[in-house]
């Protein structure tokens, strides 16, 4: 199994509070991603990173920010959580093929963490 650890695995918080989810990898993969999974929507990309301090928005980035100060860690922050952000969040990694942005991700396999279930009351 790919070495991907998400923390926390479960969190309940209140509207308006900040929340940070952490993804840690031991594979030294270049690309890291944050997805959210909601019934009827499949997985939707929030943000991704193609290197240390290189990040970009996905399709549902509003209300989220990310940081990657080390190859192995990718943090997802909800500055002020809302009930619409109740979801299961998945981190994924891939090796990539070089270049910038999603074009450099290539066709490599994505490896997923086990997910973080966030409930915003």
């Amino acid at each position, binding site marked *: 199994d790919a070495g*991907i650890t998400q923390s926390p695995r479960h969190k309940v918080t209140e509207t308006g509070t900040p929340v940070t989810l952490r993804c840690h990898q031991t594979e030294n993969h270049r690309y890291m991603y944050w997805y959210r999974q909601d019934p009827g929507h*499949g997985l939707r990309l929030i943000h991704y990173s193609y290197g240390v301090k290189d990040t970009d928005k996905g399709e549902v980035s509003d209300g989220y920010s990310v940081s990657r100060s080390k190859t192995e860690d990718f943090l997802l922050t909800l500055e002020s959580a809302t009930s619409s952000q109740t979801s299961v969040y998945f981190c994924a990694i891939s090796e990539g093929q070089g270049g910038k942005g999603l074009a450099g991700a290539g066709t490599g396999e994505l490896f997923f963490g086990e*997910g973080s279930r966030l409930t915003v009351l």
Partner: protein
Amino acid sequence: AQSVTQLDSQVPVFEEAPVELRCNYSSSVSVYLFWYVQYPNQGLQLLLKYLSGSTLVKGINGFEAEFNKSQTSFHLRKPSVHISDTAEYFCAVEGGKLIFGQGTELSVKP
């Protein structure tokens, strides 16, 4: 723009029966196609992928999929399912960015 449609949200089937999970896509560029599986309370893992070459792709756990360019489909099949195949299955298309379908819940009953 790309899109992916999984035609069935739920597929119930009896053990040892064949199954087909349907996936259609649209794209203005050439695409790569994937099927991922998600077992309960776990992340997704790759079942199989089509990048080029033979349109019939074999994956893990006895699954296979056929790329049909004229029908823009990439249906997943297994000739005989097991209880352990109960999971959610996601079709994904990459044509510059990776887009996931909404998922199909496969429920295998004894």
